[in-house]
């Protein structure tokens, strides 16, 4: 039924709504990311990323996206950014790094784009 509801929705450019279909597709990847709330699990992942991904039964698509640090690939494979942010943190990446990676911009260019929204005379 959710597919019917989804079809009634106008797509938003460059945007994936994390709905039931995506939540099902992404469950294993998001479960792995949720485990990274625990420092011991982050260490275990660092020691052997592929083994940790297998432990959480990631799909081949998810494994490949994680190995390639492909953020859009992880989103397409059902990753939710709130959980993916914990994985990115292990790699030392913040949400601006993620933004740059997803938009194909340099981090400096991405930050400059954010500053360009400022019409109110704040820090620029």
């Amino acid at each position, binding site marked *: 039924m959710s597919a019917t509801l989804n079809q009634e929705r*106008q797509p938003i450019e460059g*945007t994936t709504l994390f709905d039931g279909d995506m939540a099902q597709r992404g469950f294993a990847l998001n*479960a792995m990311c949720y485990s990274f709330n625990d420092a011991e699990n982050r260490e275990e992942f660092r020691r052997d990323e592929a083994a940790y991904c297998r432990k959480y039964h990631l799909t081949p698509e998810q494994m490949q996206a994680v190995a390639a640090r492909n953020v859009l690939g992880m989103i397409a494979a059902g990753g*939710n950014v709130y959980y993916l*942010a914990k994985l990115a943190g*292990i790699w030392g990446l913040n949400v601006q790094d993620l933004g740059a990676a997803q938009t194909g911009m340099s981090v400096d260019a991405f930050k400059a784009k954010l500053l360009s929204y400022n019409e109110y005379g704040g820090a620029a």
Partner: protein
Amino acid sequence: MTGIVGGYFTSHVPAIGGAIAKGLQSDPYWKPFFDGFPPIRKWLNEEKPDVAVVFYNDHGLNFFLDKMPTFAVGAAHEYHSADEGWGLPVYKTFTGDPALSWHIIESLVADEFDITTCQKMFVDHAMAIPFELAWPDAEAWPVKLVPIAINTVQHPLPSAKRCLALGRAVGRALESWDSDDKIVVMGTGGLSHQLDGERAGFINADYDRFCLDNLMDDPEALVNDSIAGIVEKAGTQGVEILNWIAARGALGERPLAKRTENYHIPISNTAAASLVLEAV
């Protein structure tokens, strides 16, 4: 008689916690945001609320996709912060107010809001950062806490209209709470931002302005959009405005005045705002 002193609304961007930890409040990037808070602290210091009823969203600390409540009301004696995975400090523990929590729960369910109740729950940066901003020097938080979590993670999300109604129902519960305690209502998150997808970095100052200009006097204006419509206007994580809408609802029909407001782009990937609507 009710002891609602007003509403305190703020963004809860994790990077704010990083800036506080590094003491960057006067840094040129951060100052325009932190400048919004001295008037808020002054107001809180005048009113000295005893309890905070806080509408917020969890980011994968307490709730995972295995069990995702649409609305969850905390009923714990205390709420702990914990490691969120990406380097924020673990924040001070919050003291609960279980008697008020259960009063709200009873009242909401009688009002046909079939909420989830949590006698144990972690609260994440969406709770701790607004507290850190409000009471930066407190050795212990000066207010007890009733947390109310709204699902802004997994669609279908509750509609803005439903969140406003939930807030109004919480407001009715607070009206019937027999206590001398003074209550501050809080809504955290937003404003416009999008972390994911090719549209990452999307910000919409016009929509944020619309929200800030209408929240106090015409909150109904904020609930005309569908969730997809709000995502389109505010970004995928901009839907956190639902927390503000619910908190506004909890203030009810009492006369309000805008005590202070600040809006600044950008903090990290987010258009950041803070606001106090004072009961007058």
